[in-house]
């Protein structure tokens, strides 16, 4: 079923916004105002955007160190995110968390772990909580191919299948974990694809095609929401920039420049933009307008972040325990 024009524009807007935010962070990072490690999402925007478009506001997401895209796609406040990167007390985590630990309770993002594979069981537990409370909420979790090395994935998926939990596992296979290619870490395709087919909704798809991601996610979410159990979607994609920080900080020589070039051409944002322009869904004037709105929003968010107050030493001991 083809998407409505509105839905397509919405999807594109989400992707474009994530892209522009990431680009701005990258271009400003060397100023050292954002004293936080950043893991940029450039090249993977279709995944967060496609999956989150299939989720309700009260559905949960769980994410990882590369979380900006997930946070924004799920509805996270840009000002609060930028303030967090600027280590300000107006940040979503009040400056205690930084780029790797974003939170947005209002949109079901209950906090982000930077331990690879750490969020997978937590998302599974959120699914369990929804099931136990007989809520029809779904818990979706984003993780990388690196996280798929970890035993927590196996243990979690087994448990979710056992209990038929409403959890959607979204593996973002961008080919790399820091400087290690997937082939040096995985024995082949992730075993869940073939191994668990009869008990698990599984799909391996092009993660750079936002409509395909949306479509697959919508089916997976419907499956999970209706009590049919968990889903596992592997999205093949690529991290166009470095692992962390801005490009000039990424170690050189571990990736073939041709590989990067190839994937730059497969850029999900540009490709989708081209497609929507060709289809006439998007016009150049609308695009210009979109870009302007996003740019202004980013300006405002950076301004908000820059001018927000820093947390002071006297709050250091707050929040260790919940009273």
């Amino acid at each position, binding site marked *: 079923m083809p998407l409505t024009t509105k839905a397509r524009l919405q999807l594109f807007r989400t992707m474009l916004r994530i892209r522009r935010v990431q680009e701005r962070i990258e271009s400003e990072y060397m100023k050292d105002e954002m004293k936080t490690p950043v893991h940029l999402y450039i090249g993977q925007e279709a995944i967060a955007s496609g999956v989150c478009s299939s989720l309700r506001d009260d559905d*949960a997401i*769980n994410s990882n160190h590369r979380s900006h895209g997930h946070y924004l796609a799920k509805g996270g406040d840009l000002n609060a995110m930028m303030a967090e990167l600027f280590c300000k007390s107006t*940040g*979503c*985590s*009040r*400056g*205690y*968390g930084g780029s790797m*630990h974003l*939170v947005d*309770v209002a949109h079901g993002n*209950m*906090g982000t*772990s930077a*331990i690879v594979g*750490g969020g*997978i*069981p*937590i*998302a*599974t*537990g*959120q*699914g*369990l*909580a*929804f099931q*136990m*409370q007989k809520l029809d909420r779904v*818990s979706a979790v984003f993780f990388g191919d690196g996280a798929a090395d970890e*035993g*927590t994935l196996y*243990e*979690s998926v*087994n*448990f979710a299948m*056992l209990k038929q939990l409403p959890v959607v596992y979204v593996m973002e296979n961008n080919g790399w974990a820091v400087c290690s290619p997937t082939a040096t870490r995985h024995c082949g395709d992730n075993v869940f694809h073939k191994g668990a087919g009869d008990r698990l909704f599984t799909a391996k798809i092009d993660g750079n095609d936002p409509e395909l991601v949306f479509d697959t996610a919508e089916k997976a979410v419907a499956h999970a929401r209706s009590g049919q159990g968990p889903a596992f979607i592997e999205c093949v994609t690529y991290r166009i920039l470095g692992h962390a920080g801005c490009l000039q900080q990424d170690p050189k020589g571990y990736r073939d420049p041709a590989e990067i070039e190839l994937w730059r051409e497969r850029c999900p944002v540009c490709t989708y933009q081209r497609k929507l322009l060709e289809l006439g869904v998007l016009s150049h004037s609308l695009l210009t307008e979109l870009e302007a709105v996003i740019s202004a929003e980013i300006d405002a968010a950076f301004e908000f972040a820059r001018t927000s107050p820093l947390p002071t030493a006297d709050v250091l001991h*707050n*929040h*260790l*325990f*919940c*009273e």
Partner: protein
Amino acid sequence: MPWSRIKPDTNEPDFSNDVLLDNKAGRRIAYAEALNEALFQALSLDPRVFVMGQGVDDPSGMFGATRGLHLKFGADRVFDTPLAETALSGVAVGAALGGMRPVYFHNRPDFLLLAMDQLVNHAAKWHYMFGGAACVPLVFWACVGRGWGSAAQHSQALQGLFMHVPGLKLIMPATCFDAKGLMLSAIADKNPVLIIDHRMNFKQRGLVPEEPYTVPIGKGVIRRKGRDVTVVAISHLVAEAYAAAQELAEEGIEAEIIDPRTLRPLDEELILESVARTGRLVVTDTGWKTGGVTAEIGAMVAEKGFASLKAPIVRVCNPDLPTPSGYTLERAYYIGKDDIKAGIVKAVRGS
């Protein structure tokens, strides 16, 4: 298993338990029953509470602590888990974030080593890491499996590790009354709480009120008054220390026995006040000595109560070794009443 033979049913000593005195009278029931009653009441009173863990619906019911719960509350609220301690601990964290109040029975502390990432990197940090935006109310439970050749991997008393972790509350009850009251407090707490019980406590019987009640987390109690030396004893060693003190009273040494009940937060004031009166400190713990619970309590007193100290602190612990399995080696390994007695004498008389 003949574990049960290592310590027969006994009544608790008649501690001067000021907490209980304030309460209505209790019935004399076993430690495992007290725990079971706490879980039963928590499950009845709060629909968010559930109990999970490998074997919680066994006929043996986790040495009796979880016995029968699944029959009363159903397999949805009291359920067995796969042997996947790493992820299932994360599942508990997630369930807490999703609005539930999980109680995860881990059987033995040894297996908690598979749960360290979720416990230390996640549960204990979650509230702080997000500036207070979310909280993780959960209870982890494990029982030290001393005895009968349990050996190196099934008998560890690992509180020395967990006491080091900010963001985690750590409870080690010594009486039936506290077993129930602290379990109910732990479940009501909005933070991750780890309860480490000890198999040597499981068959003791003590006075426990029937109605639900809580014992405050972070408050220790003086189990015996004494003017000569302060003995801080943990878990089942409270009873051993008490017995040691009763014997030493005949020799004219009056030891004050403190049961901190909670190791983190620790009731430092209670300990310091006592040392201020006695001038001497013995700390005894079921775990290893180096870098463990006695290190913290000893250092804390040497830091904050130094002026009152008249003699070197004394630490009475199991030796710094993996637990051997054979019973002759076990006997040489584990400390008890006599070691504590020797420790008290050393603190008081210098040798």
